[in-house]
């Protein structure tokens, strides 16, 4: 996983709790990485451990942590990490969602070691579209939901998210019907 993801987990915990809680989470997860390098690739296991540990320390479920993390990512990490480039992702939620697949395609080119998820947009309409999410990493559906919710907040748009097909239910990917 991209270092920026772990770093984002760290930032979320520190901004919403404190350094001490983060150290506790790291200690519980038995992770002794001092600083996550944004563009470095880390084993996925680290991210999973951090999420599980954070859930235990904060008294949440891992899904709740992931969702919160998704929201935090969109509302804080991405705008701060990507700056204008994130803003340039689209003038509207619809624009942004449409650009999302190309965005990840570019990432794959720029960081060849990364294995970014695949997003596919189908049935784009004025107020809706279907977002298909394919990922080599299981169990991150809640994270995607958090990301989508975060986009709704970022673009100040009422966004309804319906998980039409779920990888947990046996599908090869998650399919979200998004309407706004």
């Amino acid at each position, binding site marked *: 996983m991209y270092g920026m993801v772990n770093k984002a987990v760290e930032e979320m915990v520190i901004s919403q709790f404190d350094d001490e809680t983060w150290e506790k989470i790291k200690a519980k997860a038995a992770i002794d990485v001092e*600083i996550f390098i944004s*563009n470095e690739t880390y084993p996925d296991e680290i991210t999973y451990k951090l999420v599980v540990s954070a859930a235990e320390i904060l008294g949440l479920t891992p899904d709740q942590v992931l969702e919160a993390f998704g929201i935090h990512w969109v509302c804080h990490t991405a705008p701060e990490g990507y700056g204008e480039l994130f803003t*340039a992702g689209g003038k509207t939620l619809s*624009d942004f969602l449409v*650009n999302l697949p190309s*965005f990840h395609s570019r990432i794959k080119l*720029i960081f060849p070691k990364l294995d970014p998820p695949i997003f596919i947009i189908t049935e784009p309409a004025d107020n809706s579209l279907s977002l298909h999410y394919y990922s080599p990493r299981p169990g991150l559906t809640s994270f995607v939901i958090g990301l989508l919710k975060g986009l709704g907040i970022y673009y100040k748009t009422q966004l309804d998210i319906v998980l039409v097909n779920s990888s947990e239910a046996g599908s090869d990917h998650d399919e979200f019907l998004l309407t706004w």
Partner: protein
Amino acid sequence: MVFPHKVGISPDQLSTVFPFHFCFDPTLTLSQVGHSLALLCPGIAEGASFFENFKIERPAYLVDFESILKQSHQLFILQVKHLDVKLRGQMKYVPEAGSLLFLGSPWLTDPAQIGELGLTISDFATHDNSIDLLQVLQAQNIALADTQKLAKRLTLQQAELKKINTAMKDEMAVRKEAEEKLLEGENIFQILFESASDGIVIVSAQGTIEMVNDHLLSLFGYSRIEVLGQPVEMLIPSRFAEQHVQYRKGFVKHPQNRPMSLSKPDLFALRKNGSEFPIETSLSYVHSQKGLVVMVFIMDITEKKQAEKDLAEARDQAIEASHLKSEFLAAMSHEIRTPMNGVIGITDLLMETALDEEQRKLLKMVKDSGASLLYIINDILDTSKIEAGMLQLENIDFDLSSEIEGVSDLMTIRTKEKQLVLITQIQSDVPRHLYGDPGRLRQILINLLGNAIKFTLKGTVELQIELKALEDQKATIFFSVKDTGIGISARVQSELFQPYRQADQSTARKFGGTGLGLAICRKLVELMGGRIGVDSQEGIGSRFWFIVPFDLATNEIPQPLQQEDKKELYPSCKEAGNTLPKILLAEDNNVNALIAMKMLERLGYDAERVTNGREALDAFNRNSYRLILMDCQMPEMDGYETTSEIRAIEQKTGGHVPIVAITASALSSDLERCWSVGMDDHISKPIDKQLLASIIERWVSQPF
């Protein structure tokens, strides 16, 4: 092969793949503009002039269509006028249109530029890698930010490390110093511990032996391995062990350092071989990491105890010896004085017979010699008692003025003999009734007055008594005896109160005396809590003085009856012409008895003599006596026992015959015994006729 359909591309399609393209004809007029370029700069539109909207930065120096066409294979960089943006791309001549086509997109070096230009990713062609470039740049920025953050943290950490390092170095130094000190302290402790003259055992709060020194091991006969970890009670006799456990637990709860001097008496320790030895201990404690630790110093006091025992025995022996000496002195006192009293008494009697002048003179010399000898013997006995620490003062209520009067009367006889004048002055504020030893006070005054008379050839001898202080029922009285005698040199004055000292040998030869009198006076005054001294000038005279504090008498002292009053109230028996009062004399010594009987006869009493207590008791049972004179020391039954018997009989029969003790000494212990058996008065040997007369008269005159 001929493809049926060549790819023809409409302006809109071109705009999709090259949203920033534009076409211009040889007149340098724009004929077609891509939608994103139009969005970027609304002035760039069909019909607009090339050079009004663009400046060709590269290739350089292109000013017209032809020159641009010629360089169309080069990379073109166009500065968009009125905007801070450059377009990067290439020129392509389209012969069908006779125009040049610019294909390119904005050259962006900062992701922020997209926003500033009002563009979004959708405004770029999908194949355009400008966005990718921006993304790389952004990644670079992020990496840079990460690096900066890391560098910052590194710097902070390094500073922190340095700080910690310095602190650690300091701490190391402090620790090293502390360790050295500890080591030094441990060494010193070890040396002191081992070199201590006492056995030392260090005991834990649980009572186990933690540490011992060699001295302790040799005291108890154990090896170190035998005692370490064992209960300390192993060093204590089993009969004390249980009590010690309780004591030890109490100590742990309320620890208190205890010096050796406060060691409990009669402590004993138990050696390995089962023998015991007396010890003294001291305790000190400290709270260590292991808890309370008690250090016990153990001193073997076997030798001390033995020394104490030896000392006690020596003291007992000394007391016994002193007691024997005391008894010897008492015996001597009696044995020497009794015959001497006989000599003097008989001489007195003899002198009252018909004698010629020569005989009287010789007898007077016999009497004086006897009196001198008695005086000397008394002095020697007093000195012996002082040296043996056996001189004890009496404490009774007495009348000072009558004592002074008595002394004065006595000394007047002697001053008259030498034709001197004796002046006695008692200041009016001197309290009359005091508490002390009148006999010894008299002895001092007689001694000082005697000396004054002895060393004064003519003039006066003056006795003065003054009150110096009166407070808290205590009167400090100053006595002085002043003469107009030969005086004493300053050299001699300082040694005058030492025993066996006289002014000088010639004085001794000329005036006689033992040289003990003043030493005795000094001791007596000191025993009374006072001081004695002398002021003197040779040839002019001396003044001996002493100052003594007396308690005031607690009881009223009955005034002795004046001679005149007595005569009036109780006329003497002789004069009254009544039956002579019958007096019993119990005295074993024939000489003393003879003297006493003569005296009684002359005083006009009907006296009967018996030689011991039993006879006296028989006589008492047979006859009625107005008074009994009872010698205390008699064979068979002594005066004390006899008196007890008489008083016991009187208990049944009623009545009370006055019994006057005749004592060899005026020791207060003797007198106490007299009073305890029921005697009424006493008179000491040698019997003074005048005193005898007054005592008998006092008791006989009392109604039955």
